[in-house]
């Protein structure tokens, strides 16, 4: 056994360049497989498994998924608006713990501005038992003023702090060169990081959205005069975030909403997202097939790398045999060498995996605010390296058979 490891170690050293290249190739393959498994699993868990602080989203008639993406992850556009009266109706229900309005229409350099009420700071829990907390001596906005509260990512990326002012831009996407609204908003506070999509949001009083220069209410027909009061029938909201006294109450409300034709209730939110991930599951499958293919390619690369050296090494094997090495020793040395390369590749694979996971986590956080749990251990971290070693051993079999059948006397002649 000792001779086997000695022969393998020397061979790896002797063919150092091809060893390094093959190890890197195996590492990329192994890292890719582990990354695809972990990132897809972590994404699914992060998007569907987390407590988001409310049970349902009420919005305009349309797709439940669009409503959820729009309100929970602040992605996509709103499917439309619902009348203020509907918001007030659900808010007044006995089975609703809180109903917080969510009105859209503006952005600040691409960061979404959401009009809402102070309840977002007073009663809203972005996670079970966790309310928004302010950095330093930040304060919630006053609903009667043009004030804003920034999520931590917005403040960090735009370099804004409490006391600074800004002018919102119209629409959910920032169009370079476009003119901002006239209204000047003063920042009253920056929230502490929540590691949720809320970190990328700017919260302002809902009146601010209604009164923003150029915004039309009542189905896009009325514009509010400066200083005038706004009739409730003009007001609209993009969505309402609902927390029930008991989550099952959502079932009853959903039945009621379905009987009407003006709104949609996305409930339960995890189920809506689960269906979404089920629908896009094929993407993960395709990525996995690609990753498996890369493993196969790496296996063939390993085979080619060893096989190509066989002609020069045949004499070496014949010498070993002449020195008393058994055929099985020579065979095992080749298979062990291929397995060792695969094993070393798997170690490199962990580095690749770490890089891809951290990169993905950063991008996902940047784009959605959702934070992946990078410390979570997926079973693929164990079986991928094992599988890689098996692939390596299999790749070594053909060259090993060639070495095994070397005619010693003829080769040394």
């Amino acid at each position, binding site marked *: 056994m*000792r*001779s086997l490891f*000695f*022969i393998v170690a*020397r*061979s790896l*050293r*002797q063919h150092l360049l091809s060893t390094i290249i093959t190890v890197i190739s195996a590492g990329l393959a192994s890292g890719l497989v582990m990354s695809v498994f972990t990132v897809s699993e972590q994404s699914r868990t992060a998007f569907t498994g987390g407590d988001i602080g409310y049970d349902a989203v009420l919005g305009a008639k349309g797709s439940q998924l669009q409503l959820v993406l729009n309100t929970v992850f602040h992605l996509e556009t709103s499917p439309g608006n619902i009348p203020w009266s509907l918001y007030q109706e659900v808010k007044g229900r006995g089975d609703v713990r809180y109903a917080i309005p969510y009105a859209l229409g503006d952005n600040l350099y691409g960061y979404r501005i959401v009009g809402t009420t102070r309840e977002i700071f007073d009663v809203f829990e972005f996670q079970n038992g966790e309310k928004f907390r302010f950095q330093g001596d930040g304060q919630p906005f006053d609903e009667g003023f043009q004030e804003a509260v920034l999520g931590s990512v917005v403040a960090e990326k735009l370099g804004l702090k409490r006391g600074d002012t800004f002018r919102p831009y119209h629409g959910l996407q920032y169009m370079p060169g476009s003119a901002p609204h006239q209204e000047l908003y003063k920042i009253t506070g920056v929230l502490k990081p929540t590691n949720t999509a809320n970190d990328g949001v700017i919260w302002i009083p809902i009146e601010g959205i209604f009164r923003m220069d150029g915004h039309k209410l009542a189905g896009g027909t009325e514009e509010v005069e400066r200083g005038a009061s706004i009739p409730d029938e003009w007001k609209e909201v993009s969505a309402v975030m609902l927390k029930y006294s008991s989550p099952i109450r959502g079932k009853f409300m959903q039945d009621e909403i379905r009987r009407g034709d003006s709104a949609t209730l996305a409930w339960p939110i995890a189920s809506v997202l689960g269906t979404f991930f089920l629908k896009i599951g094929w993407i993960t499958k395709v990525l996995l097939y690609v990753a498996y293919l890369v493993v196969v390619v790496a296996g063939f690369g390993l085979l080619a790398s060893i096989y190509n050296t066989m002609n020069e090494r045949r*004499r*070496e094997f014949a*010498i*070993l*045999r*002449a*020195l*008393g*090495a*058994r*055929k*099985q*020793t020579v065979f095992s040395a080749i298979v062990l060498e291929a397995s060792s390369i695969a094993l070393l590749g798997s170690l490199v694979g962990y580095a690749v995996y770490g890089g891809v996971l951290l990169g993905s986590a950063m991008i996902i956080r940047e784009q959605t605010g959702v934070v992946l749990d990078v410390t979570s251990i997926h079973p693929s971290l164990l079986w991928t390296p094992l599988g890689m070693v098996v692939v390596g051993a299999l790749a070594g079999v053909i060259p090993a058979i060639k070495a095994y059948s070397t005619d*010693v*006397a003829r080769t*040394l*002649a």
Partner: protein
Amino acid sequence: MPLLELRDVRRAFRSPDGNDQLIVDVPSFEVDAGQQVAIAGTSGSGKTTFLNIIAGLLAPTSGEVVWDGEVVSSLGEAKRDAWRARELGYVFQTFNLLGGYTALENVTLGMMFGPGPDREFATSLLERLGLADRLGHRPAQLSIGQQQRVALARALANRPRLVLADEPTGNLDPRFALEALGLLRELCREQGAALICVSHDPRVLDDFGDPVDFAALNRAMAQEPQGS
């Protein structure tokens, strides 16, 4: 009882025209323990095939190779490998050192298949052969004469009872040829190993004094010109 005995050993190879061509046909050959034998033969006379049969690297087509009273030519391949590693040392004409290994590693590697690596003994052998400052050098970093001495050390590292030397001075400068041969013979004597040295170099044959004529030993040579 002789250490090594060949009884009616024949070895034929299939030629390209499909006929069996007899290369070695030795009715009888014996070597006693510690005996040093030189075999004289021209190139292509089948000497290397003869040595390969003794070493168990080639199985005879017929006949027996008997080692210390035991027929080793009929042993299974694995047992023959183990026997070779334990009992024989082989010095090749082209040395056949392993390029990726240092001088010391080349010597200890052979020990791994036999009694086990003995780094101290391997080092002492190389020092004895004047390579104390070349232990970590690879073959490409050694002169031809130094490579030859590493090959000698490797052949003797397992303290074999028989050393086979195939044209051991064939690649050496004449100045070093006899020196290398002298070292080989001296070390064999010290270790009590028998030595079979095949060569067509008259200086080698003269050194032994009474070489065996391979043409007389190998009846196959009387039939037709042979290749080795």
